[in-house]
């Protein structure tokens, strides 16, 4: 088989971190090659070097046997390398077609854009690679999965032969993940080479031919996927044996902490997204909310945390009515929140990491006489960085925007768990995290449970819900379509309830 990418001795030093330490990588034409590694192992750096976004300190790259210098993304594009970034680069009020042709527009005379011809070519590409997306739809009107397909089409339109995907499934729903896997297979089948950056072992098992495992900037090894199992991959990636199943001790739930009564919530556009929901949550209990993204989970969480007003119904925390309280008072009443959208609600990206750690400490723990107490803040930041293994190139002084997504997530989880609130609301706590970090965060969540705290866990990952929760509520269409004890249900039954089938109730236990 022909080698299409050959990277030799790639080294890249960032301030405070050796991101790539003489890495060798060979990728065969027409294969799906996975790059596996923890958050901060150097996968994205390596691919940014391949795509010309970053220049290596040393090492060389051959594409199709030719030695090349990839000085910027335009050079990469000319060499047939395309990249789907984790954060899409799309113009929200352009159509799919306009986004794809931008920079390589088909033109009639006088520089008039020939949209018809562009649309036609895109339709053909959609057909031959089984990509379902409407070329004339506006980006802001289509789903995340379709936006990702637009990004893939951008590369195909430019006749890319090597397609790099940077953690493509982090933002997708389970159904969309399955579609993407099909797309990847059809790309490889047509002779394109796919490089898949990921830390999800299941996905590698599902689609990849070859996996190269990186750990702390070095190549741990390259293996045929058919010859290595998930446990081995995890151990090589983290450098120790990984516990897949969380250890949950049996314990009794205590007094009621949170009562939600007939809660109805409208979203920003005035559409009813939560329709008369009621439930209780007790001390020492983890209550899971399962459901497909967009079935009212966000609005439910926003209502409890005070980010959205309630239309009708009541929310009681420790028996006290907090329905009308401002966010600050809710926090003081014992509420903690790990939000789903870490960029919008979790962090101030242009602040330093240490500032994000104390951003909502309304009491004066970190200030004296109205002045910030740097020494205490630094101490707290270092403690959280150490405890939760938050990797940032300049430690507590890192600008949060420059951290990888997984480490941003760890920072929020660290901040909220450290406060040890009476009621902790956690949405997608392990989104974008690798198995090692997931294991740690799960154990910390269970520790909160043992300390008799109440936890409301919203997640799209059924594995996570089943592993951690005592009770599970399934939301579909703004209503609770079923309530199950975690010990008495399984993925299949929850899956049916998620689709809104109340018939899930009559599902026979095997």
């Amino acid at each position, binding site marked *: 088989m022909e080698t299409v990418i050959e990277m030799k001795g790639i080294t890249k030093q960032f301030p405070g971190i050796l991101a790539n330490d003489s890495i060798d990588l060979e990728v065969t034409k027409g294969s799906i090659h996975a790059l596996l590694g923890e958050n901060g192992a150097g996968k994205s750096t390596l691919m940014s070097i391949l795509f010309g976004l970053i220049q290596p300190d040393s090492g060389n790259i051959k594409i199709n046997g030719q030695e090349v210098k990839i000085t910027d993304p335009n050079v990469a594009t000319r060499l047939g390398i395309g990249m789907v970034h984790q954060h899409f*680069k799309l*113009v929200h009020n352009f159509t799919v077609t306009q986004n794809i042709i*931008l920079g390589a*527009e088909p033109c009639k005379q006088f520089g008039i854009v020939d949209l018809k011809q562009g649309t036609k070519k895109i339709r053909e590409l959609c057909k031959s690679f089984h990509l379902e997306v409407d070329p004339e739809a506006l980006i802001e009107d289509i789903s995340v999965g379709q936006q990702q397909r637009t990004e893939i089409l951008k590369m195909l339109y430019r006749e890319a032969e090597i397609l790099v995907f940077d953690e493509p499934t982090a933002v997708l729903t389970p159904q969309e993940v399955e579609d993407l896997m099909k797309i990847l297979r059809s790309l490889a089948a047509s002779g394109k080479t796919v490089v898949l950056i990921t830390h999800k072992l299941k996905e590698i098992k599902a689609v990849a031919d070859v996996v190269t495992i990186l750990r702390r900037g070095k190549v741990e090894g390259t293996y045929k996927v058919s010859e290595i199992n998930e446990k081995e991959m995890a151990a090589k990636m983290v450098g120790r044996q990984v516990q897949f199943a969380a250890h949950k001790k049996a314990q009794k739930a205590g007094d009621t902490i949170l009562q939600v009564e007939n809660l109805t919530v409208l979203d920003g556009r005035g559409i009813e997204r939560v329709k008369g929901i009621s439930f209780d949550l007790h001390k020492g209990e983890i209550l899971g909310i399962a459901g497909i993204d967009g079935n009212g989970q966000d609005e439910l969480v926003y209502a409890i945390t005070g980010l959205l007003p309630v239309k009708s119904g009541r929310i009681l925390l420790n028996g006290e009515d907090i329905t009308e309280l401002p966010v600050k008072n809710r926090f003081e009443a014992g509420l903690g929140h790990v939000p789903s959208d870490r960029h919008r609600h979790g962090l101030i990206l242009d602040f330093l990491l240490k500032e994000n750690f104390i951003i909502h400490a309304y009491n004066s723990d970190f200030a004296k006489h109205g002045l910030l107490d740097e020494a205490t803040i630094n101490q707290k930041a270092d403690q959280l960085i150490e405890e939760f293994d938050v990797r940032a190139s300049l430690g507590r002084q890192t600008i949060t925007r420059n951290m990888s997504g997984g480490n941003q997530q760890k920072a929020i989880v660290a901040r909220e768990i450290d406060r040890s609130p009476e009621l902790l609301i956690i949405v997608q706590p392990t989104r974008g995290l690798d198995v090692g970090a997931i294991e740690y965060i799960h154990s910390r969540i269970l520790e909160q449970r043992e300390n008799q705290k109440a936890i409301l866990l919203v997640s799209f990952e059924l594995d996570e819900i089943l592993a951690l929760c005592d009770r599970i509520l399934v939301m579909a269409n703004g209503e609770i379509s079923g309530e199950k004890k975690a010990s008495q249900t399984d993925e299949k039954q929850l899956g049916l309830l998620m689709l809104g089938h109340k018939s899930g109730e009559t599902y026979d236990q095997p």
Partner: protein
Amino acid sequence: MNTFLSMLPGSLMVAAPIIICALGGLLSERSGITNIALEGIMTVGAFVSAALLFYLEKVPGFGSGLGCWVAVLAGAFGGMLFSTLLAIAAIRYKSDQTIAGAALNMLSVALCIYISQILFGHQRTDTFTTGITRIKKVPLLGDIPIIGPLLFQGINPTIYVAVVLVVIVWFVVFKTRFGLRLRSCGENPQASASLGVKVEKIRTIAVLASGFLGGMAGALMVLTTDTQFTASSIHGMGFISLAALIFGKWQPFGALGAGIFFGFAQQLGVYANMIPLLNQLPSEFFHAIPYVITIIALVLFSSKAVGPRAAGQIYDPGQR
């Protein structure tokens, strides 16, 4: 109705520079650069054209008509030259666009008065005698029943220039390759750059084009409504143009409509003493009318108007 009809030519004359300047703002903001320096750019354009016309009138052959249009073109290039300062500050050196624009506005008046003092010995230009005047009747079009007398007789030709420019700007922004790239830079420059679009280059072209149109607007304004340039020649019309841009939702034809609306608002101040009820009010009130109407219109309509997403933000290629 008769009052309304008699207000029309004046309104269109005032509207023309507002529309043209708003088109300049449109190009700049659509590329992602907020251009509040338009007030200053208009000032420079007005000064250059007024000063040049004063001298041209002494040159045989430039006395009537031709001299004015040469002066307008010179004003446009003057505005373009002045806008290079904004391009350098906001694009090359990534300074805050609002502050750079505000600084240019202050600089413009000071600069023009300073040069006036050197050239003419006082803080304004000497008066010119020609200026751009109304056309009695446009051939052919003026003969159309109803529309002819209304729009093509006794109208200042500057509005025709404005309408032609509206069509040109619309075509460039929405139909051409350059326009597609321009708009992408104003919404998501990181996306444009990732596809090889040269964001800084596009934005520089847009700011210079905006300076050209702003300078032309200033020139047309002073040559149609005044006989000399003074420090208060532009009196906030650059800002009203920006209001027209927002009111017109960053669309060329929107700017046309909004410009005509603001032109009427300005004229209302002049005609108010002829309108029953309104003429009971003190005259200061009329001078305030255009600005009050501007504020009311903006409050009512601009809350729903969404401009280019990246406008006003400093472009950082590395930002995620």
